[in-house]
């Protein structure tokens, strides 16, 4: 058996010498198209095809980002946006985890709460904005609550369906060992529902970003969303595009963190490895 295991390792070692690390190779492949597009954009801007007051060249956008970095405003806006997102994301996730676990596990709780939650889900979350502003003003609380509401639903739905989709056969194993309800939940149900919980977290994060923008567009004096409005009001397209780029970068980073968490905690899953 040991020999069989050893053989592929030897091959792997050889391949490493011959070829570039596959993950680096993937990054390189993925960046070909964006780089080409940016070069074309820069070129077309320089020869005047794109009017600079509508679509400035990438170099100008980069310059505006650099200025913001040096005068410190980039960090101020980014940190406040991240702060709102993280806080709202945490509140939304914790609420979804607790309510979702209860609804998924106890059928009485399900019939008690699920219809109501489904009804609330059909309200477009942005429709809450006026009410939240009326209740909590335009300060931080209304923004955080709006983000939390946005995050709540995808996480909740995924937890509930994750728990309800658990193989009854695994739960029976726990019952044979006389597990208490708490042991069943902590040792079988939660780990088994973890994959769909993580899927929920990632789509929750996506919605969280959407609602950060919404909240900051609505009324804020700081944040990347505010920069968007500010850029629009001051006719500064490079500021708007810079903010969009910032959103893209931050969204990608936060998603990568969750993705890393996912691969780290779900390495036991027997899923197809893409070639």
């Amino acid at each position: 058996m040991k020999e069989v295991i050893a053989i592929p390792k030897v091959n792997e070692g050889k391949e490493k010498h011959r070829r570039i690390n596959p993950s680096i190779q993937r990054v390189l492949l993925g960046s070909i198209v964006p780089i080409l597009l940016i070069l074309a954009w820069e070129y077309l801007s320089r020869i005047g095809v794109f009017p600079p007051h509508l679509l400035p060249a990438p170099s100008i956008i980069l310059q505006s980002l650099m200025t913001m970095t040096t005068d410190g405003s980039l960090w101020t806006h980014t940190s406040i946006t991240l702060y709102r997102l993280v806080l709202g994301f945490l509140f939304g996730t914790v609420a979804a985890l607790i309510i979702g676990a209860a609804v998924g596990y106890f059928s009485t709780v399900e019939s008690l709460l699920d219809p109501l939650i489904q009804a609330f889900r059909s309200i477009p979350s942005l429709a809450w904005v006026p009410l939240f502003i009326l209740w909590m003003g335009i300060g931080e609380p209304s923004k955080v609550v709006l983000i939390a509401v946005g995050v709540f639903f995808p996480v909740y739905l995924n937890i509930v369906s994750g728990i309800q989709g658990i193989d009854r056969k695994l739960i029976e194993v726990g019952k044979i060992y006389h597990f208490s309800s708490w042991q069943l939940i902590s040792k079988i149900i939660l780990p088994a529902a973890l994959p769909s919980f993580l899927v929920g977290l990632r789509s929750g994060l996506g919605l969280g970003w959407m609602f950060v923008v919404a909240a900051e567009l609505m009324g804020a004096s700081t944040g990347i969303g505010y920069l968007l409005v500010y850029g629009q009001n001051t006719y500064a397209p490079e500021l708007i595009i810079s903010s969009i780029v910032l959103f893209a970068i931050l969204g990608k980073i936060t998603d990568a963190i969750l993705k890393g968490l996912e691969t780290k905690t779900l390495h036991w899953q027997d899923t197809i490895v893409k070639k």
Partner: protein
Amino acid sequence: MLSIERVSRTFSNGTTGFKNIDLKVEQGEVIGILGTSGCGKSTLLRVLSGLDKQYDGQVVIDGETVHDVHKKIGMIFQEPRLMPWLKVYDNIGFGLQKKVQSKIAQYIKAVGLVGFENHYPKDLSGGMAQRVAIARALVTSPEILLLDEPFSALDAFTKMQLQDLLLNLWQTYQSTILLVTHDIDEALYLADRIIILRGQPGELYQEIKIDKSKPRSRGDKDLAVLKDEILQLLDLSHSKAI
């Protein structure tokens, strides 16, 4: 040790399950339960394990009437039912309230999985996974072991290996075993007594005692005669259940 007194469990349509089963099992005895499909063999084990509580009659373990999952009972299912997020080691220790390392190591050795402690279930073959399930059931030292067609999903060679493994473990730990199977050879190879269920709902039709010492030869002539007898008892030629 274990006695089953007029236990019935039928389902709403009244034709599946079993009825009026009386059975007394001695300490250390291996009982093989045979029957055509639909006669309630698996349901009987679910009732005994305490997973199915909607039955009539009494199940008595060591003089104590039980109506729930019992500590003295261990169960091995048709599928391994391992927790995919736990390594072999943790899967084996799954039912222990306190993970005693030496105990888990002892059973890893007993089922021949030394070196595989840190594998995840996805990396195991069917036979290895079922070995883990056997170790998981034994590690809590159950006095009565219920097996529900435990080897039916395995290929013929793995099946024979695991039957021998089960026999070894039985000789070491002397647990009482109830083995539901549809494999007559398996029952003849392992059981001290074979119970035949027939009908829908299933009823106890015949009991056959096998006095041969174990391990037995798989090609034993007396067993071949018994196999013929059992085939006739099961009346496979006229059975509607197939």
